[in-house]
């Protein structure tokens, strides 16, 4: 492996040693921007500099909104609250304790600490298994309102409605404030760009596209989101700290709901999900409103409102997105400049000890599993075991409870009664991401992949549970377990590693999802009608893959299927479910010709089905 890796690295595009490749793509714009930041004060007049310094700090706050909303899919109105926390930490600190280096550090520490604590709490409140994005937005809405009311009730400590003013602050020249603010924006942009282009950044996009799939890949999305909230909250607080350090006035408007929504408007107009769009949006709106608010106050806000509605409804990419598409249409080279997917990925196989051919430990045990919805009983007393090397087909008419059974096996919170053990461990009430950790992989009926990620990125996200993805680099090598690699190569995905998943055909999407689940290296594989919609050739290929997995890798595969011929062809065992109970359970040969199956499928008046055969 090391040889292959280093060989690939030397083949890849040249970059400075130690620095991530993504930095190379933005090096020139970043340097240009740095020149502007350093030289700006020599060309711009005092008033413009004044406005720009404030606008730059606001731009940092807008960046945090873009990361949360554009990249990870959480619409947040509450970043203004963290901005306000940083702002008031400085103002209160300097008002109460005067100005000096240790007061400044104390205020900085308070800003960071309080913002982190509040963000953590809000994150815990908003992101929990089963939470909806709407609820997270609701909480983010309530946060600045609560904060502002607390500020109002703070009397002279917080300055109440008037805010705090008149405290002594940093004695830095306007020119240097500009350089500081500009430098901060640049640094934030670069760091955000590197992290979001890295493998770890892909996970954010995956969570935005398909949160459920992430959970079933073993990713604790709640924890990732909470961690992200904390980081973004701290960054916004630092922006507020700088803003008030410069302006000398901390007012409740800096922390309120209206400012929070303005940040969202800036990001939307500039182009969500593009980072630079947030900065552009913030700068344009702040500068224009400063100049226009006296001459065209009402009309300007009207224009912003109309533009905002237009962007949301018809132009989701905002200004930057439209620029990107327009330039891509005009010149393909420009398109490549804006393209985000990495260039060349190569596959590698993970080293693994092949399991002994006759290993057949029990890996799935269901004991008395039941699921009720009120008085409606979907599953009752389902018990069976499954071993390594078995391919068990679960069959039964519609409404028999097949998908519910799969859910109860994969998600510890689903069942009403009974126990489920995976690879010897009880799943208790564990959420799906933890059950995956026990060795279980679930493939959904409708292909559940990450639409805007490339095939390679989808697979990489699938590996992120086992291999901590880099926060900095985007690895050019994709290492997969042998089974996953086999699926990728035999299905034709290997030629499409850079293609976004949403452009794949139905059959390829199914293959991709299978490969992603196999990338988990599971011992138990749950498949829900995997051949639905596949051509005959695809179905045969699929059958071959499954039988291979079971024979060579000693997987235990539980598959829900309607196609009885397919079932007969590949299974070693059949479980027949009927009205929530196990009607038959035994080797294929015994079951297939049993008259019970025919009667259940065609429907006939028979009393309770016979007991399941062991």
């Amino acid at each position, binding site marked *: 492996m090391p040889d292959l890796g280093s060989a690939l690295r030397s083949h890849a595009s040249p970059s400075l040693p130690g620095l991530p490749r993504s930095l190379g793509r933005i090096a020139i714009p970043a340097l240009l921007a740095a020149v502007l930041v350093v030289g700006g004060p020599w060309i711009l007049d005092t008033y413009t500099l004044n406005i720009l310094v404030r606008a730059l700090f606001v731009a940092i706050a807008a960046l945090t909104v873009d990361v949360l909303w554009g990249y990870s899919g959480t*619409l947040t109105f509450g970043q203004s609250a963290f901005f306000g926390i940083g702002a008031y930490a400085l103002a209160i600190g300097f008002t109460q304790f005067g100005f000096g280096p240790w007061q400044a550090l104390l205020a900085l520490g308070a800003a960071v600490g309080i913002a982190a604590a509040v963000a953590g709490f809000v994150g815990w*409140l908003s992101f929990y298994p*089963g*939470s*909806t*994005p*709407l*609820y997270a*937005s*609701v*909480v983010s*809405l*309530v946060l600045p*309102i*609560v904060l502002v*009311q607390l500020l*109002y*009730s703070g009397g002279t400590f917080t300055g109440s409605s008037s805010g705090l003013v008149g405290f002594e602050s940093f004695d830095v020249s306007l020119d240097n404030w500009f350089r500081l603010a500009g430098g901060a924006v640049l640094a934030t942009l670069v760091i955000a760009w590197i992290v979001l282009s890295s493998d770890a950044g892909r996970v954010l996009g995956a969570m935005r596209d398909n949160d459920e799939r992430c959970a079933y890949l073993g990713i604790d999305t709640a924890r990732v989101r909470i961690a992200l909230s904390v980081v973004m909250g701290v960054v916004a607080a630092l922006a507020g700290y700088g803003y008030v350090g410069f302006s000398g006035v901390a007012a409740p408007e800096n922390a309120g*709901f209206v400012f929070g*929504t303005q940040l*969202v*408007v800036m990001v*939307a107009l500039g182009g969500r999900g593009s980072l630079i769009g947030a900065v552009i949006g913030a700068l344009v709106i702040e500068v224009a409103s400063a100049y226009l608010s006296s001459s065209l106050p*009402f*009309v300007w*806000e*009207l224009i*912003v*409102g*109309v533009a*905002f*509605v237009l962007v*949301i*409804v*018809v132009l*989701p990419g905002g200004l930057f997105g439209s620029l990107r598409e327009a330039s891509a249409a005009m010149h393909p080279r420009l398109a490549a400049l804006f393209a985000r997917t990495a260039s060349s990925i190569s596959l590698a196989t993970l080293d693994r000890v092949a399991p002994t051919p006759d290993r057949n430990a029990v890996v799935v045990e269901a004991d008395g599993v039941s699921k009720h919805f009120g008085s409606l009983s979907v599953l009752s007393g389902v018990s069976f075991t499954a071993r390594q090397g078995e391919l068990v087909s679960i069959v039964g008419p519609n409404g028999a409870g097949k998908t519910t059974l799969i859910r109860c096996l994969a998600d510890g919170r689903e069942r009403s009664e009974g126990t489920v053990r995976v690879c010897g461990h009880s799943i208790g009430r564990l959420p799906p991401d933890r059950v995956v950790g026990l060795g279980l992989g679930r493939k959904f009926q409708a292909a559940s992949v990450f639409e805007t990620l490339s095939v390679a990125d989808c697979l990489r996200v699938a590996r992120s549970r086992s291999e901590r993805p880099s926060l900095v680099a985007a690895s050019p090598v994709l290492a997969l377990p042998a089974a996953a690699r086999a699926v990728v190569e035999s299905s034709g995905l290997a030629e499409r590693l850079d293609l976004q998943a949403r452009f794949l055909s139905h059959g390829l999407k199914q293959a991709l999802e299978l490969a992603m689940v196999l990338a988990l290296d599971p011992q138990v594989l749950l498949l829900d009608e995997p051949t639905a919609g596949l051509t005959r050739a695809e179905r045969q290929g699929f059958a071959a893959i499954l039988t291979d997995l079971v024979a060579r890798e000693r997987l235990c595969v539980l598959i829900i299927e309607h196609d009885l011929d397919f079932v007969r062809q590949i299974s070693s065992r059949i479980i027949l479910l009927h009205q929530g109970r196990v009607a038959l359970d035994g080797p294929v040969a015994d079951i297939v010709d049993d008259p019970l199956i025919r009667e259940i499928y065609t429907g006939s008046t028979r009393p309770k089905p016979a007991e399941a055969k062991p």
Partner: protein
Amino acid sequence: MITPVLDIVTTAAILFIVSAGLLIVFGVMKIINFAHASFITVGAYTALVASHLGLPPVLAPAAAFLVGGLIGAAAERVVVRRLYGRPLDAILATWGLSIVIGQLVTLVFGREVQFVPAPVSGTLAILGADYSSYRLLLVVAAFVIAGLFTVLLNGTRLGLSTRAVIMNENLAQGLGIDSTRVRLITFGIGCGLAAIAGALITPLASVDPNMGLSWLIGAFMLVMISGGSLLTLGLSCFVLGGLQVLTSTFISPILGGLTIAVLAAVALRLRPEGFARA
């Protein structure tokens, strides 16, 4: 002693009137209309114009309903219709819409604060206390509105179609119900209701381009925890409105302003689908 109780009842009534329109839109269309605040403002300004034109005060809510309803229907046709699959974007677009409407109102009427005289002034001696007649009148108005809408929903063909669309839109469409028309009418009615609310609350407050905003968050939270049932909305307004009044009276008016938002957020955490039984 009786005064806080009357405060609670009248506050609940006002909250109900303000939130009903938002609930109807959310229940049928599953989106949050963040432009609700600006329709409150539109209703208030309609009442202002009506009073300037010399119309009798009783007609003001009706005029407001017409104006709000028409603008709402236009908004649905042009903007909201494209956002049904994207609830978060719907919040944003309707918020943008409220900015646009607010600015248009400012352009036409100016930024100043204006006043509409109360149609009913003075106090009523009730249960041993002198209480504002107008506030008591609003309680009656709340029941009238609730009654009208229950009748509309349960007693008319439109109401039947609407209930079908709420329960299962695809099936309703398959049965020949024009769900697009149902949505258009519902959105218009929801905005019209917001406008009525605006017209009704102006005598107690002032009329300025941003007046609706302070009601938006409270209404939004109440609708979210009511989960689509008018009855539950009434109960939520009573419980949370009551807690708001009690907090304002006995602890601090500032914290009172927070009560609805915070308690509703906590309630939603415990029961994300809201508290409607249906």
